[in-house]
């Protein structure tokens, strides 16, 4: 009995100590986690002290910080380097885990946190050459130059925080992962820039397009997945009224279907044809069309919605050098989107094709060391790389391979090398730092000249009333007029890029006669003006059409109108598609009572994706059912219905709706020849049935608020640290598009009025703090969800902030150690 007791207690204690020191499965070590002094319960006090002093050993002079009531630090420094040091310190204080997570994602080092389960993701990252690109950027940076100084000073600030980190300050997530913060290196900022390149410029259709050609033929592929958008509402205003509809007649699909199996080829960075995409917007209005006679600018970049937000809000003030406010990435010095005393600016993604795939001939299928070029074998540059787990355990060793074009990776047993402007050594961070000090639109455009990748529609306005937009970046020229949407033959250097598009071919507009400018990721220039190949994955221009239509209608725009536009529930897609669907449905002459009900309900719909509307869910179901029937030729043989290889966007649906007898309306699985009316009629009934099956009879569960939600996931994907299921006033292809899982959306909304004194408003989904226990972790979410904006404080000096506007005063001094 005594032996048994001894055994049981020994076992229990051993188990507890093992659980405490090592954890079990996904469970982190419980001892350091639950320890009430050093563990998760000791997470730092979440409210900032009213007055405090901190130190950074490399500061050259004291720096004053005032954190305003929105949690935004206003940094008053005497040198640029000191301002960036303090910025690094403060961002690390608020977002340390996020900063490291982003760098690890870009460096392919997530497995050091997550173990073997992250190795595949890390392998993809390294194979795509992201760390390689960042290291090339770093190597090309002029030592002692402005960018080098900025990232070095920023790193000093970050490390000053890490060095003084009290146990209670260790972010929550490190406790969950049982990890310690990595020391911040200046080059880490460049890793983050490379990661943005992947986010914004890695979409590519080359590998999937041949499969579509196999399925429907080259001619039909060319029309259904066109290089130029069938509706033109370009970024650079055209010399004729827009939108210009150039809807094509759809050629029949090829009768020979070569592709026989597989709907998901598992390609990296798949293409994104279709309407429902991440959509950034920006627009500016010249003084002649605003109520108060000042230029107005709205920024509305859309990205993945995360907690904490990708953005961090800050105001940097250095007398005679810098006075800028806005948002920056957690991990980058300066301000990326924002305004100074004279100029305001923002970006949308250009979406141009800056990545090409080259099929390579290699000497060995599994482990090549040579590639064939211009009639001879060439050495591949080989780079062994190790993947390590927590504690440094070796998980895997790979060899990275490079041709003269860039990284080479294997897809479905074939080897491809990548040529990608994101890999080109560039100082894009330096560009962002330079635009902060522009005093006019022209200054700003000059500073943007050096920008490389990814292509950005940079919109700028100044206090003199000038507005301008330019799709800045490096546009590759393919030899012999080749396009970038097909796989190139890698065995000849004759297929290599032959240069970059000259500055006068870059889409651009300054002080346009129409008095406003807008971009929404659409094709930047009408091919009638310039048909040079710039890309092939343009989203349908529904958002641009809506923005432009509303701006044309209003010749007395106010900041409030700009704000309302950002969450406008109207949709150009609905305006174009709905009447045609109704007409086809009526034309079907259906006696089906359900089809009639659907038609009646849709006819009464105002076409707006408001929270209470019950018709939006029906409309989306109808469009989906029409797509299933219309594009059945895009389902590979053997695949289940609806599993299309790709879906043409809504402008092609519009083209089909214009053509009653198009062969595409025919259901290839029935002996009869269906036409538009038959398909739309059947879709109406099927849509109703589907919505009823999913949501029951018409009732509150049909309301849009029950259908589409924004989901702000924590970086670790933990629901407990996320804000999920947020109803939003927006739908597919509205100005604030919301679709699918709702994981993408407006990451920062800003309106700036460029009057004698700059006035600005803004918000983002999340909060300034990355500490899930902080009241500033997600405090801005309700405001963002309601489409409202906060006034942004922009004091000229410390005294410019009223006592009631200040939450915390912080003084930084040179020295070591934290001052209590």
């Amino acid at each position, binding site marked *: 009995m005594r032996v048994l007791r001894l055994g049981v207690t020994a076992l229990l204690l051993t188990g507890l100590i093992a659980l405490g020191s090592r954890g079990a499965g996904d469970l982190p070590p419980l001892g350091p986690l*639950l*320890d009430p002094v050093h563990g998760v319960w000791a997470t730092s006090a979440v409210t900032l002290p009213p007055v405090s002093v901190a130190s950074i050993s490399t500061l050259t002079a004291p720096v004053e910080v005032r954190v305003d009531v929105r949690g935004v630090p206003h940094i008053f420094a005497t040198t640029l380097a000191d301002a960036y040091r303090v910025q690094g310190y403060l961002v690390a204080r608020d977002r340390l885990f996020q900063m490291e997570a982003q760098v690890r994602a870009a460096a392919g080092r997530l497995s050091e946190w997550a173990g073997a389960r992250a190795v595949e993701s890390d392998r993809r990252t390294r194979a795509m050459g992201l760390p390689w690109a960042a290291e090339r950027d770093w190597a090309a940076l002029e030592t002692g130059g402005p960018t080098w100084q900025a990232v070095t000073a920023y790193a000093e600030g970050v490390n000053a925080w890490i060095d003084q980190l009290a146990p209670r300050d260790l972010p929550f997530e490190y406790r969950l992962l049982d990890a310690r913060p990595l020391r911040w290196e200046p080059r880490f900022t460049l890793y983050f820039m490379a990661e943005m390149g992947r986010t914004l410029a890695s979409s590519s259709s080359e590998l999937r397009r041949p499969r579509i050609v196999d399925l429907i033929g080259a001619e039909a592929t060319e029309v259904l997945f066109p290089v130029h958008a069938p509706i033109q509402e370009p970024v650079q205003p055209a010399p004729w009224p827009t939108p210009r509809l150039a809807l094509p007649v759809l050629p029949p699909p090829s009768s020979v279907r070569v592709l026989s199996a597989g709907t998901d080829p598992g390609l990296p960075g798949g293409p994104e044809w279709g309407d429902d995409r991440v959509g950034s917007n920006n627009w500016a209005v010249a003084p002649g069309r605003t109520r108060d006679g000042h230029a107005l600018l709205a920024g509305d970049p859309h990205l993945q919605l995360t907690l904490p937000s990708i953005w961090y809000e800050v105001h940097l003030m250095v007398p005679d050098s810098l006075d800028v406010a806005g948002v920056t990435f957690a991990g980058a010095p300066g301000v990326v989107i924002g305004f100074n005393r004279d100029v305001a600016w923002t970006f949308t993604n250009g979406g141009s094709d800056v990545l090409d795939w080259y099929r390579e001939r290699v000497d060995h299928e599994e482990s090549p060391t040579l590639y064939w070029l211009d009639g001879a074998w060439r050495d591949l540059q080989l780079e062994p790389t190790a993947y390590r787990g927590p504690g440094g355990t070796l998980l895997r060793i790979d060899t990275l391979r490079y041709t003269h074009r860039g990284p080479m990776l294997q897809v479905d047993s074939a080897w491809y090398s990548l040529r990608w402007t994101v890999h080109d050594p560039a100082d894009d961070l330096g560009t962002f730092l330079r635009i902060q000090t522009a005093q006019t639109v022209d200054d700003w455009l000059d500073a943007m000249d050096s920008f490389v990748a990814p292509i950005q529609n940079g919109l700028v306005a100044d206090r003199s009333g000038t507005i301008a937009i330019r799709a800045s970046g490096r546009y590759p020229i393919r030899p012999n007029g080749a396009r970038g949407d097909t796989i190139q033959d890698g065995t000849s250097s004759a297929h290599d890029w032959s240069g970059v598009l000259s500055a006068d071919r870059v889409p651009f507009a300054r002080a346009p006669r129409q008095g406003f400018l807008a971009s929404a990721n659409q094709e930047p220039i009408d091919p009638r003006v310039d048909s040079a190949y710039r890309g092939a994955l343009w989203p349908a221009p529904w958002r641009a059409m809506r923005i432009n239509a509303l701006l044309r209608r209003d010749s007395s725009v106010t900041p409030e109108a700009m704000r309302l536009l950002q969450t406008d529930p109207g949709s150009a897609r609905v305006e174009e598609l709905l009447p045609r669907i109704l007409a086809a449905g009526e034309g079907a002459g259906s006696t089906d009572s359900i089809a009639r009900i659907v038609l009646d309900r849709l006819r009464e719909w105002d076409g707006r994706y408001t929270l209470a509307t019950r018709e939006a869910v029906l409309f989306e179901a109808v469009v989906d059912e029409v797509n299933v029937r219309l594009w059945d030729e895009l389902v590979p043989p053997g695949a289940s219905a609806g599993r299309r290889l790709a879906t043409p966007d809504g402008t092609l649906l519009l083209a089909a709706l214009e053509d009653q007898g198009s062969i595409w309306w025919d259901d290839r699985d029935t002996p009869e020849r269906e036409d538009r009316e038959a398909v739309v009629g059947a879709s109406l009934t099927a849509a109703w049935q589907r919505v009823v099956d999913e949501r029951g009879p018409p009732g509150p569960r049909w309301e849009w608020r029950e259908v589409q939600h924004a989901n702000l996931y924590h970086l670790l994907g933990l629901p407990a640290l996320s804000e999920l299921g947020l109803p939003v006033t927006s739908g597919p292809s509205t100005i604030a598009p919301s679709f699918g899982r709702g994981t993408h959306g407006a990451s920062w909304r800003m309106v700036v009025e460029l009057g004698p004194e700059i006035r600005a408003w803004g918000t983002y989904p999340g909060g300034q703090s990355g500490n899930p226990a902080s009241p500033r972790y997600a405090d801005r979410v309700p405001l963002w969800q309601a489409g409202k904006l906060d006034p942004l404080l922009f004091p000229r000096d410390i005294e410019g902030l009223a006592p009631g506007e200040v939450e915390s005063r912080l003084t930084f001094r040179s020295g070591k150690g934290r001052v209590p």
Partner: protein
Amino acid sequence: MRSAMLRTLAVGLGMAVGTWLLGWWAVAALGMVAGATTHRQRWGALQVALAGGLAWGALLLVAALSGPVAPIAHRLGRLLGMPAAGPLVITLGFGVLLAGSSAALSRELRTRS
């Protein structure tokens, strides 16, 4: 009775200080010591377990006074799929079990020797 209470409080105080200075495993180490020295007491192991709970309970109270214990409990509770009180109970339970099992083990060893 009184001496038992005082002993429990003294052990608890030691565990709190030990946790503060050395970390969570101090509870197990002090539990071993306390179990060995109280092996003749009938409820010695339970007293030590109680001391572990008191120690961590007091430390949690201190944490609550200076930090955001409630929101952390809320987040952790969501993480673990339980009410906010759950993580607090688990924390206290971990301290109790750690102290109690180490005391029980050292008692058994001491008794055998």
